Each structure stands twice: as C-alpha cells, then as structure tokens.
C-alpha cells in the first residue's frame, strides 16, 4: 500500500472540483473505472497488439516472397525458429496462427468494440459512466492478461500455437503432430478463455448501459447508428462467445484429460492413439457457431462508426436511418445461422451445405442495403475529407469489394475449389480485415479529440490513408487469382508445385506492397502517440457533429458533464437542414429553438407541437411560401 499512497502524492488532480480528490496514479491510469480511461487502455493495447501482429505478417510475407533466400538478421531475433536465416516451416504456421488470432480477437474485437463501446456508449447516450464501472475495469484487465498470455507463448520452447487461428483438432490436440500444439497451444486456449471472460463482462455492461442509462429523450430511435451497431455487436457476442468457451474447454479436456470429444481413430506418426468415438467436425460446428458471428462482431462496430463519420463529414443525414438499423438487426440475426458455410467441404452433410448456402446468400441483402445507403448519403453531400472521412470511404470500398467475393465463397458449389485457398484469404482480409481496421482507424481519427483532448495531424493522416488504402488493395487483390488457380492458404513455400511457380513473382510484389503499407503505419503511430502530448488542442466540437459526446468539455471529467446531463430532443442526423442557419443541429437543441427548419415529420405525430409549428409559420414565413403550402 505504501507505494500506492506515495504515487498518489505525485499525481496532480486536474479537476479536483468534482469530488474525486483521492485519485492516485494507480486508480487513475491503471485500475481505472472511468469509461474514457478504459477506452484508452483498450485502444492502446489494441494498437500495440496490431503492430505486433503486423510484424508477424511481414515475417511470413518475407518467407513467401523469397523462399530460397536467407535473411541472417532474422536469426538474430528469432534464434532457432529462423536457423540459417530462414523461417522454419512450423514457425511459419505459428506466425500465421498468431497473426490471425491477434488480429481477429485482440485488435478487431477488443481493440475495436472495446475502445469505442467504452468511449461512445456513455458519451453518446448521455450517461455518467457505464452501468458497472468495476466490471468494465475487470473486462480490460482480463483482456490485458489474455494478451500477455498469448504473447508469452513466443517464449515457450516448443513455440506458439501453430494449428491456424481456427485451431482445428486433431492438429491442435496432438503435440506429436506439430510442436506448437504443446505448451503453446495450452497458452492459446488459456488466453482465449480469459479473452472470452473479458468479452462477456464487457458485453453485459454495454447492453445494460444502453438499455438502462439513456438520457432523457434518448429513445431507441434517436440513438446514433454507432450505438445501434455496438449494441447489436454486444448482443451477438454475448450469445456466441460462450459457445467458444464450450469448444475450448472440451478441447482442453481432449488435450489433457484424455477424453475423445473431437478425436477418433488416430495413428500419429506410427503410434496408435487410444481416442475413440469423437468427431473433429463437432469442433468446427462449435467454433464457427462463434466464428461466423465473430466476423460481424468485428465488422458491425466499423459499420456503425463509419455511418456516423460519413454522415457528419458529408454534412448530410445518413440515408435511410431506419433501413440501416433494420439491416444491422438482420445481419445480427442471420449471422447465427450461416456458420456452416465455413464447412461445405469438411465432411458436413452435403444437404446441410445447401441450406447454409441459402442463409448465407440472404445475408448479402442487408449488406447491400447498407452499401447503397452509404452511397446515397454521399450523393449531393458537402464532403469534407478529414482523415476520418477518408478512412470511412476506404472502408466502404473494402466492404464492397470484399463483400462481393462473398457471393463466390458463400455458394457451396463454387466454394468446392475456393475453400482454403488464397481466394478466401483475399476475401476475408478485404471484407473483415481491411474494412474493420479502416473502420477502427476512422474512429480513432474522428474521436481522437474526445479521447485525448487534442487533434491528430491531418497531413500525416492523409499520408497514412493513401499508403494503407492503396497498399491493402495491392496486397489482397492479386491473391484472388492465386486462389482461383488453386493455391491453398498457409503454404510455407510455393516451390514444390510447378503450377504455383508463376505466383512467386506476384508474391514478391505483394510482400513489397505489404512492407510499404506496413511502414506507412509508422506515420500513424508517430501521429497517434506524438499528438497525445504535442497535438493541437481540440475545440469542443471540432467536426460540427450532432451527437452528445461533443457537448462535453474537452478536459475529461469524471461523470462527463459538469452539470446536468443534457436532454435529447431530436435524432442525431440533422445536418444541413433547410432553413437552419448552420449545417448541423446538435441533438440537445429543442425544436422550439429551430422553428425555421422544423419539418412536419419531426414531431412524430405530436399534434400540439404541430399546431405550434403551424402558428409560428403563419406568423413568420413570407407570404409566398405560405401559398405553396
């Protein structure tokens, strides 16, 4: 305790006027229960994990581009895993596995929803904090522990898990089959259980906050789309993550207790194993029952954030707000009945494959609606290209180009020869990877002033966007063709098959693109971390946005609003409303203050309000306009 108190003595309380005089360094920065601080913790941890996973991807891209070359410097860093300067085949699989796991779970799930759900739910709903700040803190610390456990698997002698991020048994269950399935896999599973606990704690909290703590006037249909997206994401997560726990726990039993849930009839390297009666396909069902909703857990927050950013920066209401919400609901619901499309050729009953194909292609309809609505929002807008807006437009582009290839892979007949090829790699890296990371970066650029009270440098943001946007397309677009040719994913080298040799030059191109795009991220990191200290000070509402978070003071205070929580009077998308002198009307402005711009639709059938409006119009409007009515 002594060091806690001494640390407290050093910390300076910047806003002591709010009754929290006893915040020590530990309670303020480390075990914080404040949603804004937790959001920052999630974000920074997410960014660190993203950089780590990106470096892993560059490592395996090097191997793919120059399979015959030696890179002695790798041996310096990786030791026995890159003996003679060449990455070892099993370590290559470990790189692929951990890259996927970190990106999907730690960056795009926790880093994305963790950050923005924590930041925006209380802010945009008008709440002082989350429903349960303590649970919120636990959620972060479980996540952090999961990250540490995952990274620690690199320091294990047998290496990190290397059965692919989907960890299909028996490969993940039998250490004899691959060395990464030893202690590394145990750590992977432990990390995943901790991670899921974190998600459940977080998700419960998000849902209860959204249901119970909306400010006065904030009905469901006045919530910004970000909140809708985060709300549905949390619900999807809450329903699907426990299933992964079940899958993981059974796998742990198979690995260490000797049960046979997933294992049967195995003869590994000449040794007959005693397992009998299990089915590897069972694991796939359980895994993808989470795994597919997970795709939407990753994507939906990005859709929510970009909806908000596109609307704000087009200075136009989001087109078809209700349709956007209904399509999110549609996507969430359908996401639970499409998991089988990952298993068309895995030995699942082929009839079931047909059924899953139908459900899968249905989910394309709400996705298409969302895209068209984005386009309609841009149409006749007054588009300001802030870095956030650029990333939002990039996100829409990736969502289209990656989503469209879903029509191939969701079609079970076409999937036969695309399954587990580079086509899949290209598809999900565009639609889930790039689209979501662009959604996340868009959110970071847009809400940075709210997170840190300063602005990020725009020019560096522009550089970052163009490098990343072009780079991502150059990396993933050619991969489609490799997949069409039948090159399977997770291949250590393309040297063993004559038909793959023509792709080695393409691989070199992809790797250089990846390196350049990777270096482009330094612009972001510099900008992000530099601006925390040195950025231009933010104004209260730098983007001219309508939502509630921009009514809070720039300096963070506990409880968000110094006085009373504002009341909400209108939906969040009154941008460029005709008749109003400004091109935005914040949600807190009552209709009585904007008589010149009110539309009959605004009153939702409130006769008294309509009468007042009519009277005002009769009294104030010029004669000519009255006649047209």
């Amino acid at each position, binding site marked *: 305790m002594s060091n806690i108190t001494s640390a407290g003595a050093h910390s300076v309380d910047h806003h002591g006027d709010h009754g929290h005089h006893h915040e020590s360094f530990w309670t303020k920065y480390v075990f914080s229960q404040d949603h804004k601080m937790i959001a920052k913790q999630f974000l920074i941890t997410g960014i660190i994990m993203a950089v780590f996973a990106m470096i892993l991807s560059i490592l395996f891209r090097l191997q793919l581009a120059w399979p015959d070359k030696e890179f002695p410097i790798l041996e310096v860093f990786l030791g026995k895993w890159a003996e003679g300067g060449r990455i070892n085949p099993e370590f290559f699989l470990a790189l692929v596995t951990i890259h996927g796991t970190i990106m999907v779970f730690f960056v795009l799930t926790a880093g994305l929803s963790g950050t923005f759900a924590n930041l925006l739910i209380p802010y945009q709903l008008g709440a002082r904090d989350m429903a349960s700040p303590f649970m919120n803190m636990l959620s972060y610390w479980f996540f952090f522990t999961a990250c540490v456990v995952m990274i620690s698997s690199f320091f294990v002698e047998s290496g990190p898990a290397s059965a692919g991020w989907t960890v299909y048994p*028996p490969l993940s269950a039998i250490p004899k089959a691959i060395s990464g399935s030893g202690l590394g896999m145990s750590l992977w599973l432990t990390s995943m259980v901790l991670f899921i606990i974190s998600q459940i704690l977080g998700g419960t909290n998000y849902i209860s906050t959204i249901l119970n703590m909306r400010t006065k006037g904030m009905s469901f249909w006045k919530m910004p789309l970000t909140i809708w997206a985060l709300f549905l994401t949390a619900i999807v997560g809450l329903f699907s993550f426990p299933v992964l726990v079940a899958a993981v726990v059974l796998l742990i039993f198979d690995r260490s207790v000797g049960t046979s849930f997933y294992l049967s009839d195995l003869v590994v390297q000449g040794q007959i194993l005693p397992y009998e009666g299990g089915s590897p396909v069972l694991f796939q069902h359980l895994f993808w029952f989470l795994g597919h909703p997970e795709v939407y857990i990753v994507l939906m927050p990005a859709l929510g954030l970009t909806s908000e950013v596109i609307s704000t920066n087009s200075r136009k209401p989001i087109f078809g*707000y209700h349709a956007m919400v209904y399509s999110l609901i549609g996507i969430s619901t359908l996401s639970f009945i499409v998991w089988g499309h990952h298993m068309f050729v895995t030995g699942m009953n082929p009839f079931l494959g047909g059924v899953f194909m139908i459900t899968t292609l249905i989910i394309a309809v709400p996705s298409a609606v969302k895209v068209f609505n984005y386009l309609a929002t841009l*149409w006749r807008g*007054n588009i300001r290209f802030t870095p956030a807006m650029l990333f939002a437009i990039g996100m829409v582009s990736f969502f289209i180009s990656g989503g469209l290839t879903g*029509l191939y892979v969701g079609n079970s007949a*076409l999937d036969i020869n695309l399954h587990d090829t580079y086509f899949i790699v290209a598809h999900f890296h565009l639609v889930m990877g790039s689209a979501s990371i662009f959604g996340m970066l868009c959110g970071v650029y847009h809400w940075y002033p709210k997170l840190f009270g300063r602005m990020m440098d725009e020019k560096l943001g522009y550089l970052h966007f163009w490098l990343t946007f072009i780079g991502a397309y150059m990396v993933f677009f050619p991969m489609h063709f490799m997949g069409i040719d*039948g090159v*399977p994913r997770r291949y250590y080298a393309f040297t063993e098959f004559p038909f793959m040799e023509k792709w080695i030059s393409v691989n070199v191109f992809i790797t250089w693109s990846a390196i350049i795009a990777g270096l482009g991220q330094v612009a972001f990191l510099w900008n992000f971390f530099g601006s925390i200290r040195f950025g231009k000070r933010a104004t209260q509402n730098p983007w001219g946005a309508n939502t509630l978070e921009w009514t809070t003071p720039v300096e963070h205070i506990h409880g968000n609003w110094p006085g009373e929580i504002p009341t909400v009077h209108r939906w969040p998308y009154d941008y460029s409303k005709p008749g109003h002198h400004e091109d935005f009307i914040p949600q807190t402005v009552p209709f009585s203050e904007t008589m010149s711009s009110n539309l009959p639709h605004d009153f939702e059938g409130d006769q008294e309000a309509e009468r007042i409006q009519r009277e005002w119009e009769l009294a104030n409007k010029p004669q000519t306009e009255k006649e047209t009515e």
Partner: protein
Amino acid sequence: MGFIKYINLKTVFILALSISMGLSGRAFSQEADTAARVTDTTAAVSSAGDAAPADTAASADTAAVAPAVSKAAAAPAAAVEPESKLNIDPQVYTNFFYYTLLFFLICVVVAVIGRILKVYELTRKMNGLDAEYYMYSFHAYFFLVSLIAGLYGVYWSYAHHGTQAWRAAATEHGAQIDIMFLVTTVIITIVLVLTHIALFGFAFKYRATPTRKAYFYPHNNTIEKIWTIVPAVVLTILVLFGFFTWRSITNVSEEDQQNALLIEVTGEQFAWTVRYPGRDGKIGERNYKLTSPLNGLGIDFNDKNSWDDQLGSEIVLPVNKPVRVQITSKDILHSFFIPDFRVQMNAVPGMKTYFQFTPTITTEEMRDKLGDYNYDFVMLCAKICGGGHYNMQKRVRVVTEEEYQAWLNEQPYFFTEELRKEFQVSQQAESENEQDAKLLATAN
C-alpha cells in the same frame, strides 16, 4: 499552431537519433567483427559470401520494426553473440543499420514536405486564400485518379492474372461450376465497377466547397425498397443456380455410386496413400488399431474384399468414367484437393468422406491444350496439417481405359507376402476353417 514548433523539434530529434544510431551501428559492427574473429574466423569468412547479397531485403523489412526496437534489440544481441554459436556476418548488422538509416531519411523527407506544406498553407492564409478546401479538392482529384487507375488495375489484373489463373475444368461437374463462376464474375464485376464509380465519383463531385450546401435527404422508401428487392432477386437466382448444382454434385444416386470406380485416398503427415479396389471393385475394411509398420493403413484382412486391394503409386483414372473417391485420414485433418477437377473434400480421421466426379480430359489432351508438355494434374493438401503441409502432393493422371488397365496391372497388392504369412499365423492361432486358408493361398 503548436505543431509548427514541434516539427522543428521532431526533425532535430530524428536527425540526432539517426546519427547516433549510425554511430552506434558502426561501433557495434566493429565489435561484432572482432568477436566473430576470435570465436570462429573461418566460418565468418565462409558465410560472408552467401549472406551478404541475401540480407538486403531482410534489412528492408526489419526497418519496419519500430525504430526504438532496433536499438534495444542490438544490445542484447551483442551480449549473446560470443557464447551462442550464431555465425552472423557483421555486414548483416551494418546493412541493417543502413536500412534503418534509410528509413529515417525517408521520415526526414516526409517531415520536410510536411513543413513545406505548412508554410504553403500559411502563405495562402496570408494572401487571404482558404487553407482548408484546397486540400479537399486535392483528395477529390486523388479519388478520381485512383478510380481510373483502380478500374484499369482491375482490368489489367483480370486480363493478366486472370488468364494466368484460369484453366477450364477437366471434369463434368467442373464445367457446370465454371459456368456459374463466370456468371457470378460478370455480375459482381458490374456491381463492383458501378458502386466504385458512384463511391469515388460522388467523393469527387460533391467535395466540400465554401459555398455548397448539402441536400437534406434523409430517406426515400421507394428507392430503398428497390435496392432491397433487386439484390434479393439476383441473389435468389444465384442461390437456386448454386443449390441445384451443389445437389447434383453431392447428392449422387445409389445406382451411380455403384457404377463408379471406387478408390480410396488416405492422408497422413505428409503423404497420401491411394488404394485401388482390385478385381472385385470393393475396398476392404480397415481398423486403425491394426496399423503396424507392415500394414500402414491398418487394413483388416479378415475382410476378403481387401485381399486384392492395390496400392497406387499415383492416382491414375480412366477418362470419361465416373470415379468415387473415398477419403480418409490416419492422423489429422487433411484436404483432398484437385484444383483442375474442381474437387475438394476434407480427409477426416474416424469418418469416411466421398467425392464423385468424372474426368473428361486426359492428361495428354490437357498438355496439348495448354501447350505445356510437362503439365500434370495434381492433388494437394488444402487443410493446414503441419510443417510439411506445403508439400503433400500426389500426381493425378487421366488416361485412356487401356492405359489405365495396363498401369493397374503393375500396381502391387497391399496384401504382401509378409502380411499373408502374418495373417496365416493369426488365422491358425484362431483355428479358423480351412476354406479360408485355401482361399488365402490362391488369393492374388
């Protein structure tokens, strides 16, 4: 405006850091050099030749690692160097630092450009011009350029990579899949192009100007209904098309199953074993518990169907004859994948999976068609299965019926002399009836 002050600091900081890195790098390479000389001079010399040209790209990559890391990592590496037997040429480190320096140089250039832009904006402001909207125009034009470049890139990729990747299917059902693939490609390409023209075109056309005001247009139910229904209709067509194709491929009637040539393919780390049924056309049962060095597949020779089963050195198939492949695995998941045939099915331990198809083109014909006289169909593993995953293949040859028969006659039986003896011993021990023993003696 605080940023202007700091960009100076930044530049100075970068320069200082890069100089110090350069110095420390040189100093370090010297040190490593001597260390290497003390421990193993000859090895250092011999490795110098091959390591020097190779490390260029490596250093380029590692420059991507945050600059701070490189410095931190260098120190422990220096300490480790003498005792561990890493014979890394000092040139590697030098090059590494050169690339790090190069990266810093790029950073400095970027910082300088940023500074110039700031000055430019300031002068614009002083001359009463706007310093905000000109940047929006810049991006708008950039979007226009990337639209055109992107569309051309897509065209080029289709033309170039597409022809490189595309080979018509060599099976009956594959032809159907190909038609569906092409139809889907046409549809999605149209959608891709149109939506991107809209996306980037709107971004260009409706860029912010000081005078523009956005058009308040929150919704239009008719339009929304149209663009819900149109994709739904298109998708329904694709779904029906796909569903019936899929059923025709996977839902093979009992009779067709009987008429097909049955072969068994078993995956294990990292090889495939092919089993032909022999004269009886039936594949014998297996029991994984019987696996032994002699009997790698664990064939149960109590099942007489297994006695004439033959081991295929590769997969040879008669053309235009339906083949039913029974796919199994000994150890972990593998995937039986023949890209040219549009055939893929996972090999699952403890479960048999099947895929039935009819090859329509012989290897010779395919070679003629492609003009590549070394071309072979190949079966490969498409499911991650360990360190040798990238090289788990079996050649597939499609030949005429006569060639097939001739080849088949040369293939050895699984029930080898040794296994027969072993089996007889066990049979006698179990005092089985004589008839079996006789049959056994005359088998094959």
